[in-house]
């Protein structure tokens, strides 16, 4: 393949701006999918992606694209828009020379548009702004193009106006990709250097590595070296995604494809590693990536204690497919045996939980998610703590640090006041304010991550009538006056209900959470005392009197089955519960820690 006719690019955008739909149109234009096979967002092939209508995992595809009498090879990567999966975008960009920055013409530049544009610039990609959804009545293509130029500093010379839905403008876009985006550099004759930019697990073939060939040529049967691991493998299959996996004999500089090489587990290969020839290795590896950082942690416990090994097997199986969550055994006095799991964000956490329950049929009791804190101990050591229960006692702690995220919010100008007030409440630190247009403002704040993790986005949405968007990334850790509020149920402290918060909020939150716990736990057969304490000092207390009466008066007419079913239902209500001491704690109780203040 003539390298000059190859175009490697990713499609990036704010969530829902139409990346996957645009990919459909490109595939269709290339004839890679027949009109008959076309369903919407063909690259979103995971069941969960189709159910939720979002992209979770980046997909690469190679298509032959005839443009002005020449046949180009387009290697495109459709990426997810959600902030949890931002690392997928970063990975994709490292395998590309260009990017289509899709912007919804009815919404303009949004928070992830900004984040993705900067990432593309940082990766030295040539950017084509694609103003999408111009078929919609509310579309403002010209203004949106101006915004892209003005806000992101991207030259609007090559801007394209399209409707990924109707196909309008796609022809011009295809031509622009061919003319504007550069062909890959790299030397097919040099020693092999191929970047592993993603990997997936396949039940039959084992691990499939996504490769971008930077230099040299890779061939089927070749003995290769994974440079980071210093391990040798024989290439058993090479191919391209068209979009179905299609074997080829070789891939050379500039091309994108996949490799199968007897790798058994996802953990056997590091995404970002370099593949080179085992006999004539390259002098150095390509720059790789940082591994994805788990941002939130929570515990999963099997609702029935007996299902522990089912849960473990399910986690193992899932980690074959998703290398971006972590898990390790956890044993809680109150909740028994389970797992501490780390996720990229809350959406990721939900997805993993859903897949576990669905694929393993295990009911899970989940503790409230927590961010990861950093503790400077008196002895000078620094330790990570990702659950309140693991915090050392105060006498051992020199300093407690919390993760700080820089946050970009794009909001209507008239919402600046309310959003600033909201940011104040959440201990936000103002950084800057920039008018994208007379009507729209980008606010930058630093927040303790903990303060925006749960409901901040909902608050932002409601304070901006749905127009606000946000994006964040971790900038570091900062010391703060944090305390651990311990919750006790009938005198027994329950780590899973304890939480870390700023000292100034401890009393109020402690009281509110006890109040809510009281409602969720409900009266039981004996008295229940709930307490919140900082160290040995009790800051709040609630008492639940024992249940006085629970009896069906009538059991008549001989309809025994019905009566039994009613009682069984009452019992089944206890399924997703954990028993602490004798107290039944429903799943919802573990989540009250997350509820907003008002």
């Amino acid at each position, binding site marked *: 393949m003539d390298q000059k006719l190859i175009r490697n690019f990713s499609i990036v955008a704010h969530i829902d701006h139409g990346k996957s739909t645009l990919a459909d149109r490109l595939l269709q234009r290339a004839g890679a999918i027949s009109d008959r096979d076309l369903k919407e967002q063909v690259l979103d092939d995971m069941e969960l992606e189709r159910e939720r209508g979002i992209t979770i995992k980046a997909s690469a595809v190679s298509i032959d694209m005839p443009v002005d009498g020449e046949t180009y090879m387009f290697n495109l990567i459709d990426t997810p828009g959600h902030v949890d999966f931002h690392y997928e975008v970063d990975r994709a960009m490292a395998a590309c020379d260009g990017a289509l920055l899709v912007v919804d013409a009815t919404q303009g530049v949004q928070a992830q548009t900004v984040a993705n544009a900067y990432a593309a610039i940082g990766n030295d990609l040539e950017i084509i702004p694609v103003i999408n959804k111009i078929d919609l009545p509310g579309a403002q293509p010209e203004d949106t193009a101006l915004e892209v130029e003005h806000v992101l500093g991207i030259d609007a010379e090559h801007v394209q106006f399209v409707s990924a839905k109707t196909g309008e403008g796609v022809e011009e876009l295809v031509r622009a990709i061919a003319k504007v985006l550069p062909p890959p550099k790299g030397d097919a004759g040099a020693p092999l250097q191929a970047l592993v930019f993603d990997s997936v697990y396949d039940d039959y073939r084992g691990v499939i590595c996504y490769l971008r060939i930077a230099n040299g040529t890779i061939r089927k049967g070749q003995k290769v070296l994974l440079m980071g691991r210093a391990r040798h493998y024989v290439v058993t299959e090479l191919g391209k995604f068209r979009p179905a996996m299609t074997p080829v004999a070789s891939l050379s500089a500039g091309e994108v494809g996949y490799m199968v090489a007897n790798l058994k587990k996802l953990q056997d290969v590091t995404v970002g590693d370099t593949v080179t020839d085992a006999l004539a290795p390259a002098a150095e590896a390509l720059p790789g990536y940082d591994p994805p950082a788990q941002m939130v942690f929570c515990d999963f416990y099997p609702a029935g204690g007996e299902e522990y090994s089912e849960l473990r097997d399910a986690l193992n199986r899932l980690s074959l497919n998703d290398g971006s969550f972590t898990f390790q055994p956890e044993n809680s006095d109150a909740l028994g045996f389970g797992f501490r799991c780390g996720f990229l964000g809350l959406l990721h956490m939900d997805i993993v939980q859903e897949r576990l329950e669905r694929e393993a049929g295990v009911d899970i009791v989940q503790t409230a998610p927590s961010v990861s804190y950093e503790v400077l101990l008196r002895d000078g050591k620094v330790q990570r703590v990702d659950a309140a229960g693991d915090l050392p006692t105060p006498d051992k702690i020199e300093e407690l640090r919390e993760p700080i995220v820089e946050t970009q919010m794009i909001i209507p100008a008239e919402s600046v006041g309310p959003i600033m007030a909201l940011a104040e409440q959440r201990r936000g630190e103002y950084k800057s304010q920039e008018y994208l247009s007379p009507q729209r403002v980008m606010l930058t704040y630093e927040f303790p991550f903990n303060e925006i993790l749960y409901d901040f986005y909902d608050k932002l949405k409601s304070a901006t009538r749905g127009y606000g968007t946000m994006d964040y990334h971790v900038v570091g850790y900062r010391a703060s006056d944090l305390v651990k509020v311990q919750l006790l149920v009938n005198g027994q402290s329950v780590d899973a209900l304890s939480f870390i918060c700023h000292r100034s909020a401890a009393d109020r939150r402690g009281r509110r959470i006890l109040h809510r716990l009281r409602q969720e736990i409900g009266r039981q*057969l*004996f008295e229940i005392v709930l307490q919140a304490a900082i160290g040995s000092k009790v800051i709040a207390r609630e008492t639940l009197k024992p*249940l*006085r*009466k*629970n*009896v*069906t*008066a*009538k*059991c*008549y*007419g*001989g*309809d*025994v*089955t*019905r*009566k*039994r079913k009613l*009682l*069984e239902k*009452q*019992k089944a209500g206890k399924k997703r519960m954990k028993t602490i001491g*004798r107290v039944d704690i429903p799943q919802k109780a573990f989540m009250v820690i997350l509820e907003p203040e008002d």
Partner: protein
Amino acid sequence: MTTSAEIRSLYVHVPFCHTLCGYCDFYSQVIDRRSVAPLVDALLLELQQLAAEHEIAIETLFVGGGTPTTLPPEELSRLLRALESLPRGEDTLEFTVEANPATVNSEIAGVLARHAVNRVSIGAQSFDPSELRVLERIHAPKQVVDTVAACRAAGIERINVDLIFGVPGQSLAAWESNLERVLELRTEHLSCYGLTYERGTPLFRQLQQGLVRRVDAEVEAEMYETTIDRLGAAGFGHYEISNFARPGRECRHNLRYWHNQTYAGIGPAAAGFVRGLRYKNVPDTAEYVRAIQAGRSPRIEHERLTLDRTARETAMLELRLIEGIDRRCFAERFGHDPMDLFRDAVAKHVELELLAVDEHALRLTRAGLLLADSVIADFL
């Protein structure tokens, strides 16, 4: 218990009432003269069918509903005559008919007595006109007294009266005066039920809409405890969660249910338990009649019980009895001492003092009676 006949107890469901009470979730409909004869015909056919397939030696009969006494006298006679002539078992027949105060006059009472009915269960519910209105009952308090008198005049001595406590707006004192009124009637049997708000009933909707308010759980608990004490003092034995009887006058038919024994049921919505099979008839009169006429089975639910499930159900039912689960009988029937079969549940509830255990039996304590559902759920 010497006869080996399969069916010694029979329940007959008559799905008609004059008006429907707001709290009631029994299957019933407002009586419509034209549906009466076809229903009675169908009941008699189902009875014939039953007799053809099973050996019957009847010892307890219970005609419930609905309100059987809404049937016109000639139709009621037709039904009772057929029941009366079923083959008898060794125990003397206990033949109960449910009645509502506004539906029994001396004529109806006479019909009952003529056909061997020897026990009447009267749905009084309350003696307070305002409480009766909340319950949407049509009778006046005085009619309860008249009904009892009419039954006695006809020679039916065994009388039960049903009362409901925890009616919205009812105070503890108001309930106590209901108890005094019912004791004046000197019946041999009393049933006192805490009001249940059944899903799907008009009263339940009123509760959800905030039109009526639940009696405070604490007050309701006191009403129940007062009932136990007051009736005990008046010479009634408390033998099931909601049932009280003078010694030897317990309802034998209902005891069969509570011991999880075999019984047959006929009529729309009737349930039965025969040859280890639980079944239920379609709860729709027209559909029931059509099925019987066409020679189809009216049964819509079937459940064959495993031994384990039967054991659990038996525990569920027998725990409702004040004497509780007889350990020896249970072990003979199911091969396990209930102490072993329900070890965790027993340990938990004994510790909570809701359950008492001795060498003979497992029974709810006084506190346990109030929380029976919570305890029993752990036995399922």
